[in-house]
């Protein structure tokens, strides 16, 4: 079914898809290496996930089941908008259940549920160059990647440790892929970094505005940069989810009043709902009466 007439399946023409697939193949062959591609102007603005959308459009087939999340949630406005875009242009089945999806497009999170070999996760990437904050010239960073010259980043981490006692990067925490390329994992919280390591699913990264695609093939080593005496550590808000009681999921902090009231809830809405359906109850979950009143 193609709901939007006048456009090809999944919006992009087949020539463009072929060009993107070639870039993806190259990216998979050189894990963590940024492959330039002829990024197109999409009907959504740069910065809204045009890279991820182009990658998804290039790998999406009619039998795929698509899940789109933003900040871990299926119902954030941009996730709704992108899911709807593919609903209109490709007519594919969409889902919010991580386990049901064959293709997951994400912004800023990796689902809590472990991904499988038969799944692909597509990350939206605002800035594919992990060295961009240290060296603004892309001609120069390209040279640094070529020579695997990553001392600048190690110095940055070292300076953080001497100044603050620990690394101050909390998201988009740089990783070394397959012991070769320094890679930006996209602005996922450092909490999610370990999920990338040896992940059974194929991980694809699309940066539309910066016109780069990169990939981490299944079962590839992804190491968050650290030092032997200052090993990489993840942090999360030290609370249990108010709704499902999870103590190991990444939490959003919701402001409930103007007197410092806070509620911590799972950022991964599917994970939270699945747990609640299985009978897990958090300390601040609404009672049946309150739900009925909604």
């Amino acid at each position: 079914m193609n709901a939007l007439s006048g456009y090809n399946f999944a919006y992009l023409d087949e020539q463009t898809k072929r060009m993107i697939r070639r870039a993806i193949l190259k990216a998979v062959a050189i894990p963590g290496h940024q492959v330039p591609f002829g990024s197109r102007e999409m009907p959504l603005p740069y910065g809204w996930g045009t890279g991820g959308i182009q990658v998804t459009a290039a790998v999406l087939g009619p039998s795929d089941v698509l899940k789109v999340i933003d900040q871990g949630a299926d119902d954030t406005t941009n996730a709704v908008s992108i899911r709807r875009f593919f609903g209109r242009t490709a007519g594919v089945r969409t889902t919010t259940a991580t386990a049901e999806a064959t293709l997951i497009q994400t912004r800023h999170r990796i689902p809590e549920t472990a991904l499988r070999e038969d799944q692909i996760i597509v990350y939206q990437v605002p800035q594919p160059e992990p060295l961009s904050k240290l060296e603004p010239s892309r001609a120069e960073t390209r040279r640094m990647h070529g020579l695997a010259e990553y001392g600048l980043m190690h110095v940055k981490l070292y300076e953080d440790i001497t100044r603050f006692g620990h690394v101050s990067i909390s998201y988009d925490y740089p990783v070394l892929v397959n012991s070769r390329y320094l890679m930006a994992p996209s602005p996922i919280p450092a909490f999610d970094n370990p999920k990338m390591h040896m992940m059974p699913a194929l991980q694809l990264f699309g940066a539309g505005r910066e016109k780069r695609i990169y990939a981490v093939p299944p079962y590839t080593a992804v190491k968050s940069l650290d030092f032997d005496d200052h090993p990489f550590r993840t942090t999360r808000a030290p609370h249990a989810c108010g709704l499902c009681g999870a103590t190991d999921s990444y939490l959003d902090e919701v402001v409930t009043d103007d007197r410092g009231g806070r509620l911590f809830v799972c950022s991964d809405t599917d994970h939270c709902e699945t747990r609640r359906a299985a009978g897990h109850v958090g300390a601040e979950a609404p009672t049946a009466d309150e739900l009925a009143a909604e």
Partner: protein
Amino acid sequence: MAYVAVKGGERAIDNAHAWLAEDRRGDPAVAEIGTDQIAEQLGRAVDRVMAEGSLYDRELAALAIKQAQGDLIEAAFLLRAYRTTLPRFAYSRPVDTAAMQIRRRISAVFKDLPGGQVLGPTYDYTHRLLDFALAAGGQPPPAPEAPADDMRMPRVSDILGHEGLIERDGAPDGEPGDLTREPLAFPAGRDLRLQALARGDEGFLLALGYSTQRGWGGTHPFVGEIRLGEVSVEIEPPELGFAIDIGDMTLTECQMVNQFAGSKTVPPQFTRGYGLAFGHAERKAMAMALVDRAMRAEELGEDVKAPAQNIEFVLYHSDNIEATGFVEHLKLPHYVDFQSELETVRRMRADAMRMQEAAE
């Protein structure tokens, strides 16, 4: 109130779009604006949207301006997104601006020259007094007309070129690149630089061009010539073997003439900065010519010190569709990354306070 995970993003988006449509229409008691009115009466806006949208189509540009409520960057974006979906039938032959049907042609370097100085429809010597009669409407009196003059107007750069005083047009080396199909790579040739400038943001180029005049990469420019008019566009289908005219387009061209002291291999001569824009767009064409020349600093052996001379800086930041996307994306949800920053800052504050207490 009990917290329930926020739902209903879909309905919120639908409702927002409905409100937007109502807002766009404005007071229904006021007559709706037609795209033909925009195309005819807001011509400079249409020109700018066509240039930055990289699509020469007055009707579509007018529609985009209407749809975007006059937000010209949004309108250029609409045009660009449409443009990407269009198939490429052919690449045109280079347009010949020497054969332009001139409406306006001025030179700041020669008092008179073959073809003369033609002011054309310009704001240059208007006094910027709000014209309240215009608010009342009505037809302007017809402008005086002169008999058509078939005299060719040679380009000033060609006149200077006879004496060897100005560098020649660069010889084209191979097919020009296409930055809408291939990602930009550095070093970027002048073909790609000019392409990027031609679709670049007028305001950005204006500011950069201005900066070169104030000493940030001075180029000592003179306006050799600005010309505005219609040129014919030709394609040469391979099955025909000869060129056919497929239509006319309005262009503004600026040839900036710049000092150059010469080098070991080249005697002193004038160099060029080149500007070309769709429609009537002198500010854009002039700014483009200044920045084009500034970006040639390295090629001409000048020091590269100023932003306008830094090719990577200029090309990566001149596109307003890219720029507006990335600046405005900051309003998308960032709960997760902000949360991670919150935890980090709390931890750092706790560490700092512990240290302070220990010191006291």
